[in-house]
């Protein structure tokens, strides 16, 4: 019996180190990393630059999934052609980013700004309460329109174009089109955030304001407005993550998506170091790769599909034990 088990693992090890498996796991890991970076980047921007821990982040991702899904269903319908579906997706990007960004701006201005000077517990309670309200609101609205709130919204999933449903030969293996699309979208998002923060005057104001808000104000920077823009950017990115997930069979638009994305977002942000964008990118790649490797192992060698998720938290425990501030963390974040 033991000999059989050893043989099984030896065979699995041999098939893992084949070019087909390695390339497949690499791209699967990058696709997962792209999803994690999309889910977590808005959260880390808002925490790193403003010091606000936004527990409603997952709910805003879920809103993005439903709103993006709605745009896709309205434009693409049930029989998607590739150009219409892709065009619909990029229109949904604009609609979701704009609408969620606007919602985020209003939330920051109306709810969060008045409690900046209070202890962090106030922000946590406020955003947690906001998450509960947004989740219930979504549940009521989708139920009203006859959509099952706890299952993935199939109408949105079915708008995925055939071009992303196919697999593509890449060297020794073939890869799903959706994974390649997610990797490309994740890279674009990271590039956009990097360019905004480092190549624009407003990005410079954001970095200055997050380090020393008082000095930034004394240099003529309207730090309150900067924080509103950052919160809007963070919620807009949360919405885009939701839109990307609306086409993914493993996630899909549903009300529980709020909690399902909030937890990994926090894990990635904590591993990377609270509030550092670079840390979030590195942590996303690390978590994505470990997730892909363990998923392969627990599908091919040991049939126990829940274990890959456990490894995500195992990385968290190991990183916190060795480096309590995370990979790139600093002791203090937020400029106000």
């Amino acid at each position, binding site marked *: 019996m033991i000999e059989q088990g050893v043989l099984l693992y030896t065979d699995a090890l041999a098939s893992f180190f084949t070019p087909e498996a390695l390339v497949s796991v690499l791209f699967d890991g990058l696709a997962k990393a792209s999803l994690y970076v999309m889910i977590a980047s808005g959260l880390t921007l808002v925490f790193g630059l403003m010091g606000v821990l936004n527990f409603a982040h997952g709910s805003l991702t879920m809103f993005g999934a439903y709103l993006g899904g709605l745009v896709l269903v309205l434009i693409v319908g049930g029989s998607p052609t590739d150009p219409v579906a892709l065009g619909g997706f990029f229109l949904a990007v604009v609609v979701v980013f704009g609408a969620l960004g606007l919602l985020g701006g209003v939330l920051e201005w109306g709810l969060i700004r008045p409690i900046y000077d209070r202890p962090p517990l106030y922000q946590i309670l406020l955003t947690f309460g906001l998450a509960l309200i947004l989740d219930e609101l979504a549940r009521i609205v989708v139920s009203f329109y006859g959509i099952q709130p706890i299952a993935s919204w199939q109408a949105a999933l079915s708008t995925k174009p055939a071009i992303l449903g196919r697999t593509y030969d890449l060297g020794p293996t073939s890869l799903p089109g959706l994974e390649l699309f997610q990797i490309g979208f994740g890279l674009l998002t990271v590039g956009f955030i990097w360019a905004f923060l480092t190549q624009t005057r407003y990005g*410079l104001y954001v*970095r*200055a304001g997050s380090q020393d808000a008082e000095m930034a104000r004394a240099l003529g920077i309207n730090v*309150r407005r900067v924080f509103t823009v950052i919160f809007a950017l963070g919620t807009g990115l949360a919405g885009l993550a939701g839109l990307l997930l609306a086409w993914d069979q493993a996630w899909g638009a549903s009300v529980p998506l709020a909690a399902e994305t909030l937890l990994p977002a926090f894990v990635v942000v904590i591993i990377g170091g609270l509030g550092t964008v670079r840390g979030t990118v590195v942590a996303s790649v690390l978590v994505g790769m470990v997730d892909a490797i363990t998923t392969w192992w627990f599908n091919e060698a040991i049939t126990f599909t829940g274990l890959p998720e456990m490894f995500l938290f195992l990385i968290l425990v190991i990183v916190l034990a060795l480096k309590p501030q995370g990979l790139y963390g600093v002791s203090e974040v937020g400029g106000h």
Partner: protein
Amino acid sequence: MSLLTVRDIHTYYGESHILEGVSLSVDRGEVVALVGRNGVGKTTTLRSILQLSPPRSGRVTFDGSELTGLDTHAVAQAGIGWIPEDRRIFDQLTVAENLRVALPPSTETADGLSVAYETFPALQEHQDRDGGDLSGGQQQMLAVARGLIGDNELLLIDEPSEGLAPLIVERVGRALARAAESSTILLVEQNLGLALDLADRFYVLDTGKIVDSGSTAGLSADSDRFRRYVSA
């Protein structure tokens, strides 16, 4: 009409009454020194003008416009620059970024940076280093340069020579003397020699009140007039 007028301001930190009716004025083109011992309210006076520590009563006007009640960024946009006591460099921004953040949007970046680098050539050598990696003297030069390149009619300068080596004090002093030729300055300075060299007039602050003022002409740092309130 004075460029800056501070009229009977009372500023508190919590329940501590720090400024007890401070009044002063600075005319266009003047350099005015505000001197006094540590902890008498000099920095608080500058913070009150900037509305970083808004006075509970009294008025601050700049070029005829009321500053009281404005947000600090609006005060800065009105044309008041600040070189703070503790430098307040943005540690994680490079030297060039620390300077760019102080430039008004209408100023070409290259022009603004060249002014700073002409004044302190050492900054150009370190332009790609993070502000937090600079020595104390280099950080002070950066803080002064950042104040000088803003499009400011009035500069509030707080202890620019504090904790610096004599060579750096001399360089900073030269830069301030050059700035004084074209700007209006309210200078807080413990180094009485430097303050009297630069200033046209002075105010002495003691425990939150102005206790003496006048022209600096003919006065020296060891004058009896200062000894009582300024010497430790």
